[in-house]
Structure formats: C-alpha cells, structure tokens
C-alpha cells in the first residue's frame, strides 16, 4: 500500500497525469489485438514518466507482473482456439493465437504500469484532490478518503480478533463458517459503534459534507500542465495512427538482420 510523504511535491501535477493516463489507456487499448510491435512502442509512456514521478521503471515493471495470473487465465485460451499461421520466424510458424496472447499480456502490463505510476506520483489522497478538481462528486471523494483512512484501523482490529482466536484454537488455523460469521458479525457491530463515534466527533468539529485537505500541490494549473497533456496526447496519436513499426522494420531488416 502506498503512503506517500505529503510534504514532497509530486513530480507531475497529478491532475495532468490523471488526464494523460486516461488518454493513454484509451489510445493504447484501441490497438488491434495483433499489433504487438505498436503496443511495445506504447511503453515509452511508463518508461519516461516513472522516473519523473520518483520511481525507477524497473521497479514499476516488476510490480506490474502482479497482474499476470489474472490475464493469463483468459489469454491462454487464444493459442488453443486460434491456430491460424500468422507470423514466420525463420522456419517456425507462429499462430495468431500466440500473437494475440502476447498482446493481451503486454496490454495488461502496460495498463498496470500506468496505474502504479499514477499512484506513486502523488499518493492516493493527492489523487483524490485531483478527482475533486475534475468535478467528481464530493460524496464519492469523501467516501474514498474515509475508506482509505479506516482501512488500516479496521485491519488492525481484525488482526487483534484473529490473534485472540488463534491463541485459543490450539493450532487449528481454519475458520469454520459459524466461527467466521460470528467474528465478522462482532467486527461489524464494533464498526457501527465506531461510525457513530466518528459521526459525533465530526459534527462537533463542524463537518459540512466534505473532508478538508491540506495538500495543495495538486491545485495549481499552469500552461506547462496544458503543454504536458497536449504533447503526450500528440505522441499517443502519432504512435497509434502512423505505422512506426513498419518503418522500424524496414530499417532493422536492411541494417541488422
């Protein structure tokens, strides 16, 4: 889980990065499932943005591997069902299924890298500020901030209950449904009581419907941010609309292979 130091300004204005990331995903995911070369070129965005946001690309790439099990499950059927020859490497024919399988993996990794960079730039709370600036309803943002703040508190409370149960269960580490139901019910009742205490505390401090924020880094918007967003969109469109892999293949075929 990311807990960014709120005193450090983000590498890129998080509003600008959020808009750029969404545009990136829209353009990148519109690439045809067989366009591996084009998809590979789309990793220029995470490669350049990651160090600006304070993370090395290698670290982001390794963390994005987390998404693999989910996409492998669906993607692995492509080579099984789609055996039409598509690509020739020397004497070896590669079927269309393997090509689309590779493209699913690349799309998954790039999508995940974009999210990881977005969150490492300004942290979750910074991102909430950007969403507020982009006119996302206050109720949803307040809700997101609440869940985020109480996540650790609730997990800690559950860990205490779990430890107490484990200490009395003589090595049995499974939770029969009845025990589990009672534990969760107990936790739920504590949760409701806690929410009533929080509500009383909020009312006594003049809660007016939104949680105030102290991090103002996300709020300044200058011409540099507009330039940043526009230039990336231009790059994405060039990568998508001009057949760069074809020209690269001409160069590599004549000079290297």
């Amino acid at each position: 889980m990311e807990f960014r130091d709120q005193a450090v300004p983000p590498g890129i204005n998080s509003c600008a990065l959020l808009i750029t990331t969404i545009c990136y995903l829209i353009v990148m995911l519109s690439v045809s499932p067989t366009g591996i070369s084009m998809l590979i070129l789309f990793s220029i965005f995470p490669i350049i943005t990651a160090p600006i946001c304070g993370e090395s690309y290698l670290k982001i790439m390794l963390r994005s591997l987390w998404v693999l099990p989910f996409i492998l499950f669906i993607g692995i059927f492509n080579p099984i069902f789609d055996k039409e020859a598509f690509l020739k490497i020397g004497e070896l024919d590669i079927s269309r299924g393997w090509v689309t399988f590779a493209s699913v993996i690349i799309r998954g990794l790039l999508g995940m890298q974009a999210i990881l960079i977005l969150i490492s730039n300004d942290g979750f709370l910074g991102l909430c500020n950007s969403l507020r600036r982009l006119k996302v309803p206050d109720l949803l943002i307040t809700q997101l901030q609440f869940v985020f703040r109480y996540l650790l508190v609730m997990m800690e409370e559950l860990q205490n209950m779990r430890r107490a149960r484990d200490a009395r269960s003589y090595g049995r580490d499974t939770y029969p449904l009845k025990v589990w139901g009672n534990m969760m019910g107990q936790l739920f009742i504590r949760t409701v009581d806690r929410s009533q205490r929080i509500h009383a505390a909020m009312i006594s401090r003049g809660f007016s419907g939104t949680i105030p924020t102290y991090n103002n880094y996300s709020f300044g918007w200058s011409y540099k941010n507009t330039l940043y967003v526009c230039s990336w969109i231009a790059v994405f469109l060039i990568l998508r609309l001009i057949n760069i892999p074809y020209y690269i293949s001409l160069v590599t075929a004549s000079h290297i292979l």
Partner: protein
Amino acid sequence: MHLADALISTPVALVGGAISAALLGVAGVKVKKKDNSGLIPLMGVMGAFIFAAQMVNFAIPGTGSSGHIVGGILLAAILGPWAAFLTLTSVLIIQCLIFADGGLLALGCNILNMAVMTTLVAYPLVFKPLEGTKLSFPRLIAASVAASVVGLELGAFAVSTETVISGVTALPYKTFLTLMLSIHLAIGICEGVATAAILSFIAKNRPEIIYKKNHTRSIRRLKSIIIGFAIATVIIGGGIAFLASSNPDGLEWSIQQITGSTELSESVSSLASGCGEVQGNTAILPDYENSLSGIIGSIMVLVFVWALTALFIKPKKSSQ
C-alpha cells in the same frame, strides 16, 4: 471477477464507464436526499470493514478449500441499495488503485459487473422480496443465497460478454459463458452462505439495523429501479445492435481482415466484428504487417529510450 485493462477494448470500456458514471450521479443524489449525515461515516467505515472481512478466509464445508466474501448483498442489506452501490464503488476504486486489482479504464465495467449487479439488481429484485418484513432466519438465509447467486451470475455473464465483445479472447462465447457461470454458481452459493452467517449474527444482536425500513416505500422504489433498468437495457441493447449492424455487407470481410479467422461462433462474430470495425476505422493503417524485424526494432527503440531516461532523469524521491 475484476477485469484487467488487457481484457477489454476501448469502446466497451467507455460504454461501461458512461453507464457507471450516470448511475453514480443518481446514487449521489439519492444518498444526499436522505439528509442523514450519520450515513456518510457509516458508509466509509463499512467500506473498510469489507476490506477487513476479505482478509479472513472461511472454510468451505466438505471441500477443504476456503474463500472470502465480496460483500455486495451484505452492504445493500445494511445501507440500502444506493448507499451500498457508492460504498462498493469506492472499494473497487481502492482495489484498482492501491491493490492493483482490475484496470483503470476497465473500472467502469468492473463497477457495472460487481457493484450494479449485486446492489442495484440482485438486492431489490431478489433479496428484498424474499427477506420479508419480520425476522426469519430461514428466509434470511434463502434471500442471501439467492441474491448472491443471482448477483454473481449476472456479473459473470457481463464479464464474459464484455470480454468477447472486446474481441480479446479467441475462446468461443458459449464455452466461455458456461465456464464463467458454473464457477460463479459455486462462488455465489459460498458468498450467500457467508453473507447469511454475518446477517444472522447482526439480526440476532442488533435486529434494528436490518429491519428498520418501511416495506411499502421499498416496493415503490423497486418499481422505479425496474423501469430504470428496462431503459438501460434498451439503451445498451440498442447500442450493441447499432455497432453490430453498422456495416452488415462488410461483415465477412471485416471478420477476415480484423480477426484473420472466420471460425468464431456466429453469435459472437457479429458483435465482436462490429466493435473491431470501430477500432479498425480509427487507424490509418490498422492491419499493418507484423514481422519479426518490426518487433525486434520496437524493442530496441524501447531499450534506447529507457537507457536515455535512466541517464537524464534520476528518481528524486521515494515513496514511503
């Protein structure tokens, strides 16, 4: 059930996002109308509660395996459908951004598949009528299991349809659907029993939390939800039909050009190629030749860019 960005195409993601955003807007208005500021902290802490509850797996009787809850029906039974929808949406957003579960562009579809199907469809249409107005444990268990199964099956149906329309998988629609529905039937039953276990505990100790709503009002609300969904179905169905029939003469051509295969099952090919066409038309050179030299060249360009950024841009700060 979380869809990754890899498994979805741009048009499908945008349609899913638009529907979810519209429903979120409605939910915001509905929850604010209640004028109950105590609901906001309860929703927030309940979202965190769902995360905590997912950390402890319960044993599934007779199988030796274990599972955890998703929590849609549980939230709806306690908070009401719209507040539960908002809470589950916030859980899904945090799962996407912090726990890397599901894609950012696929978020709209994930909200539709998991939050809408359980809190706005299964809860009012299945749980509410079965639950009754007075506390009855058999009814509570039946309602929880039935609503969880319906919610998860609808979600699984939506996931399969969205993935196949996106044209990402070569898996025939019928096989994919059968696989997803059978897996989620089992998951739905476990989810239902687990939800019933928690709700029974709450009903025993704090019955007022579950049985405080006025039944006649909920029936009126039910009607408006059914009408809303009928309209949504017409819009979604109409949109898909429009995509599928936008160029019927070129259908076979587009299947061969875009997918390179005519072996897809008939029911799917019309949908998938319709979306594929939209995707293909946005590019000047959509079906360029894929060659080994192109792939190697692209990788070399990337390594070069990476080396360049490593030389000139040093990560200045690290996250804590």
